[in-house]
């Protein structure tokens, strides 16, 4: 034990240690619902013992809009409008599993061209969602610069989505049996349907190459940053077993070493025609979760580039009855959304709308792991862990 007050030891001041255990009373810390790092309105009530967090209770419901109830009084085409507001950062990809479910029950074969357009826009939604994550997460752990790059790059992708669908966040572009004619495609009379706006292929190629460039830039700018590594490596480690029991899916699960990607497993979109990798992490820590998403952006861009080169021609819509009635039956369709498994369990009684629509969202299950991950974590790590889950409250509360 160094006597810190002895002038001889003044140079070693930093080595002086305090051997007294300070006992502190637990403090209850309320975070949110209007905290900038909560991606909406999540509220956490945490007990804090000094710097250590324990007994975290997430409080939900500030964004609950009751979509499952609303779906019971709407017809199938009207529900598309509702569901793309669930995860508004990737609005387009919310529509896909619902539409695919209705089509499955009605036994409609969707034209290949419509499927390709859906796939391209889904991947663009994934890219734009991961851009938001990249910028926001860096910001949350203390790096201000990346969000400006991320938002600028995302805008390029959103412009493309807008040029086709007419909406930046809420496309409402899918129809049962296909997609609607694109917004910027000129007159949409029956004989002259132009489905994609002029110059779309060219602009997409440019934008996707920029995405690959941007991902590389993020790897240097964020991933190569010593402070970022210190704040995220070995922080918030999640094991694959816990993740599975809690239904945690998507990039978070893959970061924990599980090579699970619903794009390869289900046939809701023709992913099997394309060549891409599934990035998987090793440690399941915050850094891996970030890393997996950056690599995913590159893979998504590659898929889009391939899809554009192999775009089939043909109609955009299958033949569907004018009044859409879905036959009696039940089905569950799930899809790999930017945040994980999203699925709709449709119970149809043969009417104009579903008797019951269960919406399974990724963020709901992903956030339910928070109390486990934050148990015993340091207070400064709380934001780092929470941010790495990349949730959107619309997706949690529905």
């Amino acid at each position, binding site marked *: 034990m160094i006597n810190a007050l002895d002038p001889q030891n003044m140079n070693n001041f930093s080595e002086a240690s305090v051997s007294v255990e300070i006992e502190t009373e637990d403090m209850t810390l309320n975070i949110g619902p209007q905290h900038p790092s909560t991606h909406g309105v999540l509220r956490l009530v945490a007990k804090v013992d000094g710097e250590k967090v324990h007994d975290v209770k997430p409080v939900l419901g500030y964004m609950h809009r009751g979509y*499952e*109830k609303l779906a019971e009084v709407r017809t199938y085409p009207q529900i598309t409008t509702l569901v793309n507001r669930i995860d508004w950062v990737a609005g387009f990809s919310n529509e896909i599993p619902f539409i695919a479910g209705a089509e499955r029950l009605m036994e409609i074969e969707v034209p290949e061209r419509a499927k390709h357009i859906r796939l391209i826009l889904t991947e663009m939604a994934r890219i734009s969602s991961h851009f938001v994550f990249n910028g926001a997460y860096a910001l949350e752990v203390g790096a201000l610069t990346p969000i400006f790059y991320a938002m600028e790059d995302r805008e390029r992708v959103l412009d493309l989505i807008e040029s086709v669908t007419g909406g930046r966040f809420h496309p409402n572009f899918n129809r049962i049996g296909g997609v609607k004619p694109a917004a910027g495609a000129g007159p949409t009379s029956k004989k002259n349907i132009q489905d994609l706006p002029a110059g779309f292929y060219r602009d997409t190629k440019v934008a996707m190459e920029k995405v690959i460039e941007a991902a590389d830039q993020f790897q240097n700018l964020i991933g190569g940053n010593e402070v970022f590594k210190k704040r995220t490596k070995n922080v918030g480690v999640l094991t694959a077993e816990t993740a599975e029991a809690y239904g945690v899916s998507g990039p978070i699960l893959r970061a924990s070493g599980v090579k699970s990607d619903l794009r390869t497993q289900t046939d809701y979109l023709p992913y099997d025609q394309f060549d891409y990798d599934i990035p998987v992490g090793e440690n399941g820590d915050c850094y891996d979760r970030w890393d997996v998403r950056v690599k995913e952006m590159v893979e998504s861009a590659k898929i889009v580039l391939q899809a554009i080169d192999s775009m089939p021609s043909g*109609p955009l819509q299958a033949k569907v009855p004018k009044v859409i009635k879905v036959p009696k039956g*039940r089905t569950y369709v799930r899809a790999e959304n930017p945040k994980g498994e999203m699925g709709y369990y449709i119970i149809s009684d043969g009417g104009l709308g579903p008797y019951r629509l269960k919406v399974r969202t990724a963020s709901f299950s992903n956030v339910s792991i928070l109390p486990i991950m934050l148990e015993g974590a340091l207070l400064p790590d709380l934001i780092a862990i929470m941010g790495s889950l990349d949730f959107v409250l619309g997706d949690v509360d529905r």
Partner: protein
Amino acid sequence: MEEFYNNIKESFKDAVLEFETINIKVDSTEWIEAHKKLRDEFNLKFFSWLSAVDWDNDVSVGEAPKESVSPCFEVITCLSDLANTNLIVVSTSIGKSDPKIDSLIEVYAGANWHEREAHEMFGINFENHPNLEKLYLPDGYEGNPMLKSFELISREVKPWPGDVDVEGMPEESESDETTDD
């Protein structure tokens, strides 16, 4: 999927494969055992979701079932195996007068929030649940909004404007059956 379905059918006789989804029905007394079996023997370790359905012919919202159903709650879970495509939907029926069922938390820890949601939305009691509190709804909220008898107030006081939107576009008037040819 066929192979998995045949394996399931050996253990669960009334398994049905329709619309690419395997549905099995179990008795509510075997709720826990069935899930343990599916988790351990069929490797369905991924807990996707749990929810419920209110079956009733007397409804205040939406369309009533066309055939007469005996009023009950159907509790549904969805489990899957992430290594491949295996996915199963398990359901059971419980009475409406005293709706209760064992909590699945000991089998799947992730059932916690899903059960809390089903509790507040349908009024189902999950026995042995550690904190069966409200998840979304504010404290003091009365009623269970997802019940078919629970009225959607906004729809009661104002007619749905979407109802008028059933006429086709003028140029489409000649074809009634299909939208495209």
